[in-house]
């Protein structure tokens, strides 16, 4: 055994440099797997370590109204209770800058779990108390930085001026979406009341956090038993864990799939690299067999070499990936509480190492099996040492390694449907590719044999290189084709989103969008804004929240078509209803028709398709809404779909005029105005209606552009990494084929073919490969991106396919051009060598 290892090591050391592509491909793939799995592990461990902290209690009872006394008494009797009241509103600075915030009132028991870290480090109740003529607030450092605010500065909230007394350094139950939805501002319940923001129709969340020794699920059942008629929502920390785990799992699955794809593409590089390496070893293999080394022991030598190389590359990849995961953990730690520890990365590192080794063996075994089957008798005959057919047991070993990878992928990817989809897509990709390769080879052979091309030497040579056995067509198409597919899909998605933001929205969108306008503020708001010179239109629509109580006269709890969970979810869902004010949200009818106003009898309803589909509703069905303890019967007259990412208010139901009148307290609005006047309008609103939330479309667009910019940069990195892997594979393909091409070219040259013609034929071969890879990528990339854009994001983008094609052709030409120029430089033909060569 020692002799075999020694032989493996000596042999590897003498020629290992030729295997740098093998190592590079594995290092790249393992790094990404290790980094993605490591980062997921760090975040998962930190976030799920104690979701009681993230939720702020064992259970949380949510209501839009303060709970009645008997419910409060029940809560107090069954645990420690802390109330957090949440209201969305605008916060203005003394310099006239406004930002949407989420006000959170906290009491002296807050937080029930975890620790609230403030600067200065004093009790929150002291800091937010009324003092020196002002109520105090503690604000988020992100908000402070955005509005250039600091401790001691005054801010406007509702009707009051308050003073910043602290910065919140760490809030245990901070919402993960806080930066996007509205940064938290902590204040006292008395300050909120004094700010005049709690009015009939105000959108207020009363969250009663409870700490209890009773298991959360039991607690919830007991609560529902005690108050069976109520629709208060009760969340437990395990619900929260499941939701976080699900969301994290989806993100991690996305990252891991990119990593696995890179490893898969890199695997092709492993195959080509080891094949080229073993091609040079066939003589040694045959010699060792002729000297009496048994096949099994010979196999051990080369299996040990793969283990040494794969292990080394894997270790380097795990090291780089762990560093990336630690760095990523530090970055994420600025947003969510993540503690980065090296010990937590051991598991992901081992998994990445397993993937690396299994990939190395899966892609190396076929080449090795063929090489070891080389006939030693060729040594006597001075033949070119040709790799044989793959023996059955090597085939089985390869399948076993591939099966192990599939099992590991299914185990490791947190989102199982994602994992199954990934495995199926890879399988489908290989199948489609195989069909395409067969088709191209067949076509190339037919063209090659066609009499019309007789005499066109370079074309015939290029065509022959596509259909001959061992041609680079399959490897090139799979490596470059996969990377280009990803690139085309990313290009289409990012371009469609950018176009939607930069072209569609500015033309059609209002400059200012208003939320939470109380009925008694509507006239004042409209007349103040109307005065501004650039205003061309103001649309104000009511907004009423309702719950569904009955379908076609049957109580929702008795509708047999819905299971218990659907019944409970639907009865707790709050539907946003409005009137069709100039089709303020630009919805499109998909069934039924708008009605003629005024409507006699029960009101008419146009319902959003997703909600209607969820409940199995159709045009003609009767619906009963429960609003503020009263019922409202309506008939579904139409079903509509939203515009997708351009939707602002996302109404779930649009009613005939008058139907909602008794329930209207709040409105939303859209003001068509230029951005300079939109800023003026925000300042005006701050004075006359401080509770109204206003969002400038331009600022929204800026944020969206920033996010899209980051997403674009992320996708660019993904594309770059996959292109890098693909280029490595291409280099390995060329390295594997280079000696053959140079040998063929040398023979042709010695037979009198001009060097220029040989070069032309090689260039033509690469051009054909570039063309085929581009067509493959455009078809597959479009097939992935266009349905996603069409049906998920509602952005029809078939007209952008030309851009995808341009990118694919450009990049593949560049990649293959680089490869061709590399080969041309190496193509120093010396036909005299042939005359001197003994075999």
């Amino acid at each position: 055994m020692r002799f075999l290892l020694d032989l493996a090591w000596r042999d590897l050391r003498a020629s290992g440099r030729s295997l740098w592509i093998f190592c590079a491909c594995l290092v790249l793939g393992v790094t990404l797997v290790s980094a993605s799995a490591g980062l997921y592990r760090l975040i998962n461990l930190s976030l799920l370590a104690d979701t009681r902290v993230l939720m702020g209690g064992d259970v949380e009872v949510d209501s839009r109204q303060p709970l009645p006394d008997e419910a409060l008494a029940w809560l107090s009797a069954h645990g420690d209770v802390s109330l957090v009241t949440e209201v969305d509103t605008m916060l203005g600075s003394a310099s006239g800058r406004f930002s949407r915030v989420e006000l959170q009132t906290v009491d002296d028991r807050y937080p029930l779990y975890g620790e609230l870290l403030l600067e200065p480090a004093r009790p929150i109740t002291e800091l937010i108390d009324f003092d020196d003529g002002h109520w105090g607030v503690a604000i988020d450092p992100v908000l402070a930085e955005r509005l250039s605010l600091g401790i001691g500065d005054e801010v406007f909230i509702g009707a009051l001026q308050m003073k910043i007394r602290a910065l919140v350094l760490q809030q245990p139950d901070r919402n993960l979406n806080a930066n996007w939805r509205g940064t938290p501002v902590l204040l006292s319940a008395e300050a909120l009341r004094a700010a005049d923001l709690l009015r009939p129709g105000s959108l207020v969340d009363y969250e009663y956090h409870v700490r209890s020794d009773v298991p959360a699920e039991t607690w919830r059942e007991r609560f529902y038993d005690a108050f069976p008629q109520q629709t208060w929502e009760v969340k437990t920390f395990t619900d929260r864990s499941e939701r976080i785990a699900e969301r994290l799992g989806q993100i991690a699955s996305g990252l891991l799939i990119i990593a696995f794809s890179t490893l898969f593409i890199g695997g092709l590089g492993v195959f080509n690299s080891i094949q080229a390496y073993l091609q040079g070893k066939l003589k040694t293999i045959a010699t060792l067999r002729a000297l009496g080394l048994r096949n099994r022991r010979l196999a051990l030598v080369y299996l040990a070499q793969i283990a040494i190389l794969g292990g080394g590359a894997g270790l380097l990849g795990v090291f780089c990936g762990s560093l990336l995961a630690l760095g990523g953990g530090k970055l994420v730690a600025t947003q969510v509480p993540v503690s980065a520890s090296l010990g937590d990365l051991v598991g992901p590192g081992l998994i990445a190492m397993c993937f690396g080794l299994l990939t190395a063996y899966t892609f190396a075994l076929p080449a090795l099996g063929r090489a070891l089957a080389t006939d030693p008798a060729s040594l006597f005959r001075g033949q070119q040492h040709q790799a044989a057919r793959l023996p059955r047991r090597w085939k089985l070993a390869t399948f076993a390694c591939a099966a192990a990878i599939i099992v590991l992928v299914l185990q490791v990817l947190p989102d199982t449907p994602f994992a199954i989809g990934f495995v199926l897509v890879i399988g489908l990709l290989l199948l489609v590719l195989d069909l395409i390769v067969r088709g191209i080879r067949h076509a190339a052979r037919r063209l090659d044999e066609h009499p019309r091309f007789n005499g066109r030497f370079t074309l015939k040579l290029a065509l022959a290189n596509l259909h001959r056995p061992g041609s680079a067509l399959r490897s090139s198409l799979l490596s470059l084709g996969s990377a280009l597919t990803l690139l085309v899909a990313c290009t289409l998605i990012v371009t469609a989103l950018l176009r939607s933001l930069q072209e569609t929205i500015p033309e059609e969108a209002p400059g200012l969008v208003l939320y939470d306008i109380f009925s008694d503020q509507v006239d004042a708001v409209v007349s103040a804004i109307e005065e501004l010179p650039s205003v061309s239109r103001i649309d104000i629509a009511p907004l009423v929240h309702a719950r569904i109580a009955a379908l076609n006269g049957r109580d929702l709890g008795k509708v047999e078509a819905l299971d218990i969970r659907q019944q409970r979810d639907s009865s707790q869902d709050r539907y946003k209803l409005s009137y069709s004010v100039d089709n303020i949200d630009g919805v499109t009818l998909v069934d039924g028709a708008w009605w003629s106003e005024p409507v006699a009898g029960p009101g008419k309803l146009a319902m959003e398709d997703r909600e209607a589909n969820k409940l199995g509703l159709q045009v003609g069905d009767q619906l009963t809404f429960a609003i503020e303890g009263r019922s409202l019967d309506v008939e579904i007259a139409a079903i509509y779909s939203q515009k997708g990412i351009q939707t602002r208010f996302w109404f779930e139901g649009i009613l005939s005029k008058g139907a909602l009148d008794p329930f209207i307290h709040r409105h939303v609005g859209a003001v068509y105005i230029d951005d300079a006047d939109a800023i003026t309008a925000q300042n005006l609103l701050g004075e006359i209606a401080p509770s109204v939330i206003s969002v400038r479309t331009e600022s929204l667009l800026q944020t969206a552009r920033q996010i899209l910019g980051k997403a674009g940069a992320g996708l660019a990195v993904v594309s770059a990494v996959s292109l890098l892997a693909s280029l490595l594979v291409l280099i390995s393909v060329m390295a594997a084929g280079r000696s053959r091409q140079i040998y063929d070219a040398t023979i042709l040259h010695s037979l009198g073919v001009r060097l220029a013609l040989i070069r032309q034929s090689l260039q033509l071969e690469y051009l054909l490969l570039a063309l085929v890879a581009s067509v493959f990528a455009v078809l597959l990339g479009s097939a992935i991106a266009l349905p996603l854009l069409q049906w998920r994001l509602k952005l029809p983008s078939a007209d952008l396919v030309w851009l995808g094609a341009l990118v694919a052709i450009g990049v593949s030409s560049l990649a293959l051009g680089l490869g061709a120029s590399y080969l041309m430089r190496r193509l120093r033909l010396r036909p005299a060598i042939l005359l001197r060569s003994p075999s």
Partner: protein
Amino acid sequence: MIELQDIAMSYSLEQSQLRVLDGACLSVARGDTVAIVGPSGSGKTTMLVLLAGLEQPQSGEILIDGIALGGLDADALADLRRDSLGIIFQSFHLVQSLTALGNVALPLQIAGKENVHERALEMLDMVGLSERHNHYPAQLSGGEQQRVAIARALVHKPGLVLADEPTGNLDLATGAKIIELLFDLNADIGSTLVLVTHDDQVARRCQRIVHLLQGKLVEDRDHALSA
């Protein structure tokens, strides 16, 4: 004792069969030196390949010391080559990643013998290359490489040495020295030597000359007796 009994061997071409050996019979006593001669394509190399157990004949039987090669599996054939055969190729076929010493030591290491390096070094000394034991094949001349190949073939004292045109890639003077060395060492060890050659001078060094023509043994001359 080596016996080839009515050996037939052919290779498939695209549309036909190429008959390489056609009922060849040969018997070689232990310690004999036999030269196989004949024109290209007459079946010389195929006979050597069959004797090495690297291919099996379509019909007939090959026996080495009474053991029928046709009854052995791949591992047993490998063991036979490891323990009883030494092979010398026309193109040397040294392992490029190993030094001269490493190449000579290979058969001993494969067989798991002891004192490998001492024995290999001793063998290298016998072929006059002990001072170049640390050189790699690429650093040696053709003649030196063939001397290393001879040392590798004989280091484990095999019962049968097969040599395929051992001087084919060498100039006349070097070739003569190599043949001298091969026969001297072979005599010391007492192995049977079967040698394929086109060179009459080399053939005449052997006790017997076997002439092959179109796959048939047309002449078997005991050179020692006739001399």
